[in-house]
């Protein structure tokens, strides 16, 4: 807690460059930001390289080394896509919904994915998993998720329901409902079907199919670029409906547009690797702590890099230490949760 300062102030200009308004009030804050950004970049490169080179039997610089690295590159790209999608989507979502707790994952995205996967196995048996593979099915799943979220946002943010709190609440309830239906169907599966399904329901890099990557890359680049270019607007939207409207933002239109791109990013990420419930929250929170500024143009890069480091690091550890690369979300939640608690407890605020 910061104690309120007494009214009588010594009229000194604080450190930093007086008379210039920017995302960082002091020189120290700016230096801290760029230092952290550099550290994260170095870590990201190291992890990226580590994933390609660790346990690579061939010496670096030989043709064989790169051939093996190429085989592993798919996973690195998947990690990058997921980190990018989740980081940008979560930060943007929290900005337009004016909260820092709820994430788009909780708002029905993941439970819809779980419901689709579960009902495929429930109705079609083990062949249901196979029936869900393929580019058309992948695109259909993305379209379904984007459609559902737009319906939800559009319905709840217009007319007399024009209320974010209600939208969040309904989103959570729909998510919970879909989750319950899925759980019920899972009870009725045979053990072998259940086993296969469970593997699909852990967020896992190995779930991703390389043939989905090109379209995923295009989608996430388009949606991500739009959101990145909206940084300055998002800064104003973060001030809330009244202040943003006062400053000339067409609030409802803007948040619908942002939520549309958020839903594309979330749908791509979820369809690619499955549920990552905690990941977006973790990355966004870490990014707010590290960047320590209101400016989205500075929060986004940190969030994406932190996402890559966390996810890539988790995958690296699971793959090379535990030989269980299938279940990254476990370590993301374990280690990530711990880091999150440490950061929050040390700083004392969100």
């Amino acid at each position, binding site marked *: 807690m910061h104690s*309120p300062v007494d009214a009588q102030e010594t009229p000194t200009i604080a450190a930093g460059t*007086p008379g210039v308004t920017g995302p960082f009030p002091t020189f120290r804050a700016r230096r801290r930001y760029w230092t952290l950004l550099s550290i994260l970049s170095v870590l990201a490169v190291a992890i990226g390289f580590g994933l390609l080179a660790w346990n690579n039997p061939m010496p670096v610089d030989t043709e064989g080394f790169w051939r093996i690295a190429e085989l592993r590159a798919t996973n690195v790209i998947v990690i990058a896509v997921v980190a990018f999608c989740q980081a940008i989507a979560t930060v943007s979502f929290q900005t337009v919904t004016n909260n820092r707790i709820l994430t788009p994952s909780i708002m029905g995205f993941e439970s819809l994915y779980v419901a689709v996967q579960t009902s495929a196995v429930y109705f079609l048996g083990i062949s249901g998993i196979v029936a869900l593979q393929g580019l058309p099915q992948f695109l259909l799943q993305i379209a379904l998720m984007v459609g559902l979220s737009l319906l939800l946002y559009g319905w709840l943010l217009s007319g007399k329901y024009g209320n974010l709190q209600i939208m969040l609440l309904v989103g959570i309830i729909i998510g919970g409902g879909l989750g319950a239906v899925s759980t019920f169907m899972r009870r009725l599966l045979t053990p072998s079907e259940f086993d296969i399904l469970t593997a699909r329901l852990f967020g896992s890099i190995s779930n991703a199919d390389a043939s989905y990557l090109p379209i995923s890359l295009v989608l996430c680049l388009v949606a991500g670029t739009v959101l990145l270019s909206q940084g300055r607007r998002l*800064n104003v939207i973060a001030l809330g409906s009244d202040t943003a409207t006062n400053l000339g*933002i067409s609030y409802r239109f803007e948040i619908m547009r942002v939520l549309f791109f958020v839903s594309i990013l979330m749908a791509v990420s979820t369809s690619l690797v499955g549920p990552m419930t905690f990941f977006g929250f973790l990355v966004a929170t870490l990014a707010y702590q590290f960047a320590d500024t209101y400016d989205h143009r500075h929060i986004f890069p940190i969030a994406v890099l932190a996402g890559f480091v966390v996810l890539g690091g988790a995958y690296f550890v699971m793959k090379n230490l535990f030989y269980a690369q299938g279940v990254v979300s476990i370590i993301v939640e374990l280690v990530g949760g711990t880091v999150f608690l440490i950061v929050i407890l040390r700083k004392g605020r969100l």
Partner: protein
Amino acid sequence: MITLSNVGKSYGHDVTIGPVDLTIPEGGITALVGPNGAGKSTLLIMIGRLLGIDSGHIEVAGYDVAKTKSKDLAKIIAILRQENHFIARLTVRQLVGFSRFPYSQGRLTEADEVAINNSINFLNLEGLQDRYLDELSGGQRQRAYVAMVLAQDTEYVLLDEPLNNLDMKHSVQMMRHLKRAAQELGRTIIIVLHDINFAGHYADHICAVKEGQVTEFGTPAEILTDSVLTRIFDTPVQVIDGPNGALAVYY
């Protein structure tokens, strides 16, 4: 000039505002007074286009509030609400800087920096400009918010109970700042006030709102009389001569 013609808004079955016809002249401070729940704040936020109206028209400086682009209105009216809570942590200067968004879309120019500086100096916030809002006392924070709306450089400034939670000293300071803004910067300030004596002393016009209707509009001298105040507030009020003008006594 702000003109409201036949403005109405209804909530549910029995709570309605209007129809209100009102003309607020250019310049000076106009205070909206009235009992709790009379619709003062609602009227203010409807003028500031934060709340849509069900019927009628509101014109500010000749622009229809419902039809003019929000972007253009942001250079004509600035409105500050009572509760301001931001999820991001902002310094005073960053907050004031946001007010330049209508002009530069977030890319601050030299002219913007000058406007920010002027506003910060106007409210004596120089020493606090790099402090975070959560490190300030209530009075200082309120001053920072007012600096923000003033830096927006609009002819009309609407403030919803800016004296809320301020002690005597800070209330008086705030009203003096606003009076100066009206006189020296030529702003038209419309303000919701609870204390009729503050309105009587600092405002140039007083507009009384009761049960969703504008019941009185006039100079402080016209409003601060026993019979008018008693009628507005539904409680016996006596106006006496104080050392600095008329004083309403109601306890």
